[in-house]
């Protein structure tokens, strides 16, 4: 198991505003798998992702990535963990507005000792002709592709995607998902995709449904639908 989560518990607030977001989640994802975390708004799926990304601290439980326990790591070690293992894709791309496409990608290239080839990645993501443009000069899809390139350049073992198509129209969403699929096949990157879009679950290997801070359903797709054939995106 590449990612192992045991009895993950997380709460926020105190007294009257106390809320337990994760109530003891135990699950796992194999290396190279694409996994969708689905659930309604407030179900705890983003918190689950943030905890795995070392962005939020658990109250209780254990998270092992590639056999390494990340719970209890000091901030510096957590930085190293993210640096060496993770790639992030956000719903609103979060590109740095005063950097060009290429420069935005270089932000993460700088962190890796053995980054992927920039030109090849730009080519793969269809960004070659836009590499010197600034985010404000790009469409939403192009911006998200840039964000994916930024996440992939350091060749992460685990890609965490928080609503990667949440801000995109259906055609662009399909393109982006196809791209993620292609990346998964090409680089063997393990992916955790948080989404509330029901269609996406059909293209991945594994689906984890979270409801009220607990896993309500967890299964592997026996048949995966290619991203380009997904409907109702």
């Amino acid at each position, binding site marked *: 198991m590449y990612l192992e989560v045991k009895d993950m518990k997380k709460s926020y607030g105190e007294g009257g505003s106390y809320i337990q977001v994760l109530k003891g989640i135990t699950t796992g994802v194999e290396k190279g798998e694409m996994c969708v975390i689905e659930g309604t708004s407030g179900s705890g799926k983003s918190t689950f992702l943030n905890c795995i990304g070392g962005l*939020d601290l658990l109250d209780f439980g254990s998270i092992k990535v590639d056999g390494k326990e990340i719970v209890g790591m000091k901030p510096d070690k957590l930085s*190293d963990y*993210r640096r060496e293992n993770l790639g*992030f894709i956000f719903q*609103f791309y979060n590109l740095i507005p*005063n950097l060009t496409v290429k420069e935005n990608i270089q932000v993460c290239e700088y962190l890796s000792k053995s980054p992927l080839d920039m030109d090849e990645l730009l080519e793969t993501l269809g960004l070659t002709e836009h590499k*010197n443009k600034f985010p404000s000069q790009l469409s939403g899809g192009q911006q998200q592709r840039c964000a994916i390139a930024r996440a992939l350049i350091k060749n992460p073992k685990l890609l965490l995607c928080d609503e990667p198509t949440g*801000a995109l129209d259906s055609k662009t969403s399909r393109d982006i998902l196809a791209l993620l699929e292609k990346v998964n096949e090409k680089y063997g990157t393990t992916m955790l995709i948080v989404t509330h879009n029901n269609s996406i679950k059909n293209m991945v290997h594994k689906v984890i449904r979270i409801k009220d801070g607990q896993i309500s359903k967890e299964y592997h797709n026996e048949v995966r639908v290619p991203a380009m054939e997904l409907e109702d995106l």
Partner: protein
Amino acid sequence: MQKVLRKRIVRDLKENFVRYLALGAVIVLCMYIIISLIGTADTIIIGSEKTAVRNQLEDGQFTLFMPLTNVEKDKLCESGITLEEQFYLDYEMEDESTVRVFKNRKQINLVELVEGRAPESDSEIVLERRYADEHALQPGNVIKIGGKDYEVVGIGCSPDYEAPYKDFSDSSVNSLQFGTAFVTVEAYEELLKEGKSVKAEEYVYAYHLNGKLTHKELKDKLNDLKVDAEEIEDAYFQEYWKEQTEDKNELEEGIEKLKDGSTELYDALNDLADIQTGIVPFDEGIANVKDGAGELADGIEELQNETDKFLEEHFDLEISNLTLFLEAEDNPRIGAAAEDQMINKYGGIIAGAIVLVLFAYVISVFVVYGIEKENSTIGALYALGVKRNELILHYLCLPVAVTLIAGVIGSLIGFGSIGESTITGNCYAYFSIPQMETIYEEYLLVYGVVLPPVLSAVVNFLVIRKKLNKPALQMLRNEQKNGNMSQIKLEKMGFIATFRIRQMLREARTSLTVVGGMFISLLILMLGLNCYVMCEHISKSNKADTKFEYLYTYKYPEETVPEGGYEAFSKSTKKENQGYNLEVTILGITKENPFFDVELTDSKNEVVISSAMAEKFEISEGEVLVVEDEEAETHYAFTVKDIAQYSTSFYVFMDIDHMREMFGESDTYYNQVFADRKLDIESGRLYAITTKKDIEKAADVFINEMTPMITMMTIFPILIFVVVMYLMMKVMIDRCAFHISMVKVFGYRPREIKKLYLNGNFYVIAIGAAICIPLAKKCMDIMYPMMVANVGCAMKLAFPWQMYAIIYAAVLLLYFIINEILLGRLKRVNLAEALKNRE
């Protein structure tokens, strides 16, 4: 609407309390210093005017060879003016300082007692305040003057010695070395009788014109007052006068003898003619000789008469009694404190406004950051019908409130006893002025309380209006326009360099504010350093350049130069410098004079000037120098052939023979003697003795007096720079908090983030400092001489290159310290920031 928004102001203040507190604290400090400075200046300027009126300050003074006779005095007073004798005697004290003793005044330049009472008996004395302070003398103490003990019964100040310069040519006050004292008329007469003063009594009269005469008319009247040299009782004068009139006397005596001889011859021949020998040819011959002798006697008498007429015409036995005529406004001892404060006042007003504009702009950077954060909300409010002016008003509230509160607190402290006493303290410690009642001018209240919020409102209004002047939709979408500069291509550069340049371009406004703050801070620092360098230069150079041990200035020179001395002919003239008339001395010296490194020229029109003069008046070789002889109402023009290193005085050096010829003096005339040891010269012959020790002590006065001001001018700009740089770099972090958080998510460590987001500022600071340091120095080198235009001293402001290097290193050091402090801030940027939904 405003009522609801107002609640946000308090929240915003709470949220950014430390930021506004730091900024407010610096404004408080700034206003405190400025208000103290200007308030003190007003107190001294207005106080001096009141003191002048209260103590009947003279309109002017004049010095005579001989005291006025009662008839002359009455004649002058008939024209409606008031005169009062202010004769004085100088005494050397046990500590080698000089005390100038006057009779207590009754009409003009009255002594204002700050302690004790006026002298009533012959053994009582009032001392000038600064001298008493420096010598720890108080009423009840006893001092010895001219061998007699006097009880100090009072401490006071006289308005004619507000700057107690011993000589008019002194460039600094040194109360350790010189002070004035006042005794009863009887005590003064006794001192005069004892004859123990270091030089002859000076016959100085102070006058009030009372609107009846002009200065010029009085001067003309005084010039008409002739004194018969024969009447002057001073033995040294008579000796001097005898030397001057030797040729005339010899001629008169010769003719007198000739006349006597011819008369005797005639008388003898007359007697001989009376004896008739009977020898006709002999008797006839004698008669003829007698007639001839008679004619000779007549002729000689005629010759004597004509000679007397000629001598009367060309050798005037009467000389002008006037030796010095000085209007109060040209007297460097009078009004010096107010003049000094005038510079502080205007300098303070301008400096305060500049610093306030800087801080208003710093606040505007925060406000702009706030607006950028709230773009979408503002867009929504626009969409809901809120007007731009309402929002402008809202965003102006906090900057105006902060500056208003800071201005009020700063002004209160400035107006308070802590503020003014600090700076007036410096003034009281230099000038001999009585304690003055603190004056609160209304405009200063406006300056301290109204100006900060007004400037803040204006600056912020201009900035905020531009920022809010966008369509609602653009704001709703939070569309950030990248300026043309941010979109420049940087393809060939490495990632880190590219990132830093982009970051610098993005933060150009903030960076410029830092550079602006740096420039203003450097200007203030340069003012302090120029002051320090000038004082240091005066201290060192005056000591190094003074090679003589004694300088004797004669009232009545001896016929021959005393052995071991080198004669010189000095003539005081004036030269105008930015509205101030400064004393310049034309000094005729011999080629053998070892005390000045001067190569004298062979031409009367070409001179060598001292380095002090070249620096102060900015005169170079080859230029024409014009000086004015006010007494003779004549101007002299010379070509500057060379500049000699001599920083102590404004000297125009020329060959003594040329100078004697130019000013119509005899071939042996001199009025000063320089020597490397003490010479045996009778005190009655002298105007003044200046020793190397005097000059050395005076040289240190400036630096001692200015040290507190220099310290303040070093600390204050550092504080401004640190606060501006810290707040601006912090705002850079705050503005980039989201992206910083995001790169943290990617795995960047704080030091790497610092490298990306803050270290680029190093280049801004490094390049900014490289430009600002010499620029600020250049600006201050232009401004500073104007600020001290009235100070008669050398003006060498050049720094050694090490000083620039130290300032540069200090700027970078401050940057590195702040950069390290901000590392903590970077560490505190929350990872959750990146997870917030943003559109």
